[in-house]
């Protein structure tokens, strides 16, 4: 594995292996006095965030630091990006500065792919077998593979297995890279995925996804093993996708009444940040069924596994 750009690059074995490895990292850190492993000593990991984020960036930063990598955070607002530097020039600069891995978040779909393509080209031109590893930490409305992986890890821990489980993903499917990555990864891992959203918040071509589409949340909840609530991405909406926040909340919000429809063992997840009261009632978010903080903890271990996988071991030679 050279880069992690899309969950569709992972087959079931590769995805399961990453989840297993994340659990081994959790084990390895359990009961320790020092949360620091020398594994990535001398490696440089740069997080390049063109969009705001707490969870993902902090999670990658902690993962890198716990493995002794040097972690450098670049954010668009505090870098030359704000002076108008192009993505290509920024990438070239970070490449020249000696990054071993770039964690990229960008509002444009495909940005991480593009950077990976450039990096591999520059490395070849310099006669080296490989350039920095690229991790897609969210590109526009396209994908967020590490989020899907940590969600899968949380599901596996809560439900025992993913195979054959029914996962209901609710909300702004159209703008959600989390939803897209989750649909494909959960399908790869053998789950049945149901999408619940207003028609206006479904992407074109959703029929081709390996998921069933429904518009009635109440009808889908009783048979669900897990409910994944999504954030309504107001910053990506330039028109009326639904009449009002109140109506959205009534139709698609996870209220306490709806929580009671779920099976005893069912899990409630949210990738964060949550809009309490709109997508999810406060009492639901804090209920024992919610695995939201477990998702965050898993995020660190999962990202340790990803960095370990990408940065450790002799790279297979690039022909």
């Amino acid at each position, binding site marked *: 594995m050279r880069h992690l750009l899309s969950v569709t690059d992972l087959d079931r074995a590769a995805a399961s292996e990453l989840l297993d*490895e994340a659990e081994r990292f959790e084990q390895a850190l359990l*009961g320790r006095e*020092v949360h620091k492993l020398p594994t990535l000593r001398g490696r440089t990991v740069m997080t390049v965030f063109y969009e705001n984020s707490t969870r993902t960036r902090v999670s990658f930063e902690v993962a890198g630091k716990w493995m002794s990598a040097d972690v450098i955070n670049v954010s668009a607002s505090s870098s030359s990006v704000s002076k108008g530097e192009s993505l290509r020039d920024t990438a070239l600069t970070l490449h020249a500065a000696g990054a071993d891995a770039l964690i990229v978040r960008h509002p444009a779909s495909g940005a991480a792919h593009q950077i990976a393509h450039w990096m591999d080209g520059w490395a070849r031109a310099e006669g080296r077998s490989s350039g920095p590893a690229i991790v897609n930490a969210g590109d526009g409305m396209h994908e967020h593979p590490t989020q899907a992986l940590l969600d899968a890890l949380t599901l596996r821990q809560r439900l025992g297995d993913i195979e054959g489980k029914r996962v209901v993903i609710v909300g702004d499917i159209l703008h959600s890279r989390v939803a897209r990555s989750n649909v494909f990864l959960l399908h790869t891992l053998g789950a049945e995925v149901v999408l619940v959203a207003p028609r206006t918040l479904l992407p074109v071509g959703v029929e081709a996804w390996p998921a069933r589409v429904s518009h009635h949340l109440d009808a889908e909840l009783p048979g669900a093993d897990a409910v994944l609530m999504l954030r309504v991405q107001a910053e990506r909406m330039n028109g009326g996708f639904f009449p009002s926040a109140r109506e959205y909340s009534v139709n698609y919000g996870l209220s306490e009444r709806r929580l009671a429809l779920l099976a005893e063992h069912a899990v409630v997840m949210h990738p964060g940040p949550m809009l309490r009261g709109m997508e999810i009632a406060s009492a639901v978010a804090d209920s024992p069924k919610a695995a939201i903080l477990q998702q965050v903890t898993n995020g660190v271990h999962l990202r340790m596994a990803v960095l*370990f*996988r990408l940065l*450790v*071991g002799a790279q297979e030679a690039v022909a």
Partner: protein
Amino acid sequence: MAVPGDRAAKSGAAETTHSQRHTPEWVATGRELLSASDVGRTIARIAHQIIEKTALDSDEAGSPRVVLIGIPTRGTTLAARLTDKIEEFSGVRPALGSLDITLYRDDLRSRPHRPLERTSVPEGGIEDALVVLVDDVLFSGRTVRSALDGLRDLGRPRSVQLAVLIDRGHRELPIRADFVGKNVPTSRAEDISVLLTEHDGRDGVYLHQEAEA
């Protein structure tokens, strides 16, 4: 602990398919260093030595808590068997843990990726305990060095000792074992395979040419 009889281990008919998948060429062309009953006896002897040594150490200042830490995969299994034996012989069951040293290796950049193995810190940690590291084969000493680094992150033991089933020489670091099952002079072109029932369906130690592995 059931130790299969020497004869049963040698006859191919009694083999499980699991062990046949792992070891046919070693068994056919390799030299048997320890038979199944030898392995059992050796583990029992090391257990006695550990009891003796820790008893001596405890005379000096109170009785130290003894913790056995196995290095995966076969070191962990050996540590578990030693724990059983020590309990059988002395009535005291030492704490048992395992420490995967993958994350502490110094050759991570030059070797192919290898998946992590299980790490578990025993209840109560290793603080001020007498830690016995357990591995199957002692070779260059680099694995033990990594394990010592790993232990340092888990806490500060009172002292650390090393128990190995086979010492095959070729040390690259100033490291020696406190408890050795068998010293085997080898050439670098040779390899040692330790088979344990839990992993390979049978016990035994074989010496063979490296290319066969």
